[in-house]
């Protein structure tokens, strides 16, 4: 059984984001880029399924600029067997990415696609669900536990009220939540090994997919700043302020 895992190159989660002065977007020049943390969890889960003898091959896919190769090498250092880069300079939106991955699924025929539930740049939380829709596959989003057996996946999901468990037929799309696993650190020998693993590059046109953006970003601004208030001396002072100044208790 093949597992396909899409991985996105995003601004590192520790970097403080700066909005460009001209309002055209966020400043990405000379900023540390990393794999989207939810995608790292997705790769880890796929590699664990391979180590458990359930999956036979883990394919990492990234869609975007040439530098996404680094993201794919990271995925292969964690344990993916090979990588596919769908290379384009177009600003890709979730629907376009879902269509590209669908085209690759038609070719590779994976039984499970594991996606991160959202990317920490656009915070869209869409691609996995869109891919499932385009494939007419079932979906199990926000997974905190995945068990695959007998041609079915049993997935525990983190929902607003608590947890729920779904049983879905395969092939299917699973999207990862934070507590699915803790991704391993790639070791130096594995990073070296990853450099020799196969990495294919295709273009959206090779897959017959139109990736023209559907949404136009008119402007990007900084949110209104919340200024720091005051330090209170003690509990009595705090309660007094909450009662008489803020009037919230």
């Amino acid at each position: 059984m093949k597992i396909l895992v899409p991985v996105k190159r995003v601004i590192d989660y520790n970097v403080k984001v700066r909005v460009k002065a001209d309002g055209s977007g966020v400043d990405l020049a000379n900023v540390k880029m990393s794999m989207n943390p939810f995608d790292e969890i997705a790769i880890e889960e796929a590699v664990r399924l391979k180590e458990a003898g359930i999956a036979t091959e883990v394919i990492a896919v990234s869609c975007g600029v040439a530098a996404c190769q680094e993201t794919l090498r990271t995925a292969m250092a964690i344990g993916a067997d090979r990588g596919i880069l769908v290379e384009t300079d177009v600003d890709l939106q979730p629907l376009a990415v879902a269509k590209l991955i669908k085209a690759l699924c038609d070719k590779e025929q994976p039984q499970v696609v594991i996606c991160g539930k959202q990317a920490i740049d656009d915070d869209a939380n869409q691609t996995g669900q869109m891919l499932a829709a385009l494939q007419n596959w079932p979906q199990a989003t926000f997974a905190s536990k995945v068990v695959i057996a007998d041609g079915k996946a049993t997935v525990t999901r983190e929902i607003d009220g608590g947890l729920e468990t779904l049983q879905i037929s395969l092939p299917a799309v699973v999207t990862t939540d934070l507590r699915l696993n803790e991704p391993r650190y790639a070791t130096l020998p594995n990073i070296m090994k990853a450099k020799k693993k196969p990495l294919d590059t295709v273009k959206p046109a090779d897959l017959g997919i139109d990736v023209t953006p559907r949404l136009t970003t008119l402007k990007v601004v900084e949110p209104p700043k919340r200024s720091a208030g005051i330090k209170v001396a003690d509990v009595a002072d705090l309660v007094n302020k909450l009662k008489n100044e803020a009037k919230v208790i």
Partner: protein
Amino acid sequence: MTILVIAEHDNQSLKAATLNTVAAAAKIGGDIHVLVAGSGCSAAAQEAATLTGVSTVKVADAAHYQSQTAENLTALVMANASGYSHILAPATTFGKNLAPRIAALLDVAQISEITGVESADTFVRPIYAGNALATVQSADKIKVITVRTTAFDAVNRENAAKIESINPAADTAQSTLTNRELTKSERPELGAAKIIVSGGRGLGSGENYHKLLEPLADKLGAALGASRAAVDAGFVPNDYQVGQTGKIVAPQLYIAVGISGAIQHLAGMKESKVIVAINKDPDAPIFQVADYGLVGDLFEVVPQLVGAVG
């Protein structure tokens, strides 16, 4: 222009998020329909009919809508989508699971977690954990949108909209709910609470979390929340998490206890009206957004606070 709002409900009653989503629809303007799909869901449908601004409630009542899976609800919406200019769902785990699936089949973009409506095709949404606000314009014929509930005040219940039955779509049978463990609590729902007491790693253990924060929450009639660190450490279940990837909250009063204030946490609570931070580290980033900061040992301060608010 006719807008379809997909109601979130548990067959008995609407989730509060539905009321905020209808409010966003009213801001866009036009006729508002609410879809209630469930099993034995007539009480929820009747509640939807009371929401101000709604003209029609469409009800699909069938056994296979009991657990409201994305697969079955998408099939239902697709069979009834024609004529709508916008399809809205709350940006809750329910809406986020469903809306992209509908958008993809309509071959349109989905616009996630809008916090503002500029016009019928232009919306404001936070990106980068709320560190930037993007204004986006959609060229698609149907706009599929999820609504950040804290950005829109709930509509009133002063209406008597008409209720129409619609035919259920065929059961896709792709997904079966086998178990649902909802956290039972007498306290207000985190997303709708006026006061939230939230705890972080500084509490040290789940036992301390409950021992210290529950009496305070009880005194204030508050909901309980947590930082990711506290959830990851197993102090409390996942549904307590406030932040970029957890719940987005905006209560009147947010009391952060032993939370350092990572940007991912701030993303989930910085729209709160008044923020109180209690932390022993005077340099903790949480103090940069707090209206009232108290530097001190939470193990001493919190019990004092319980005594003082009584």
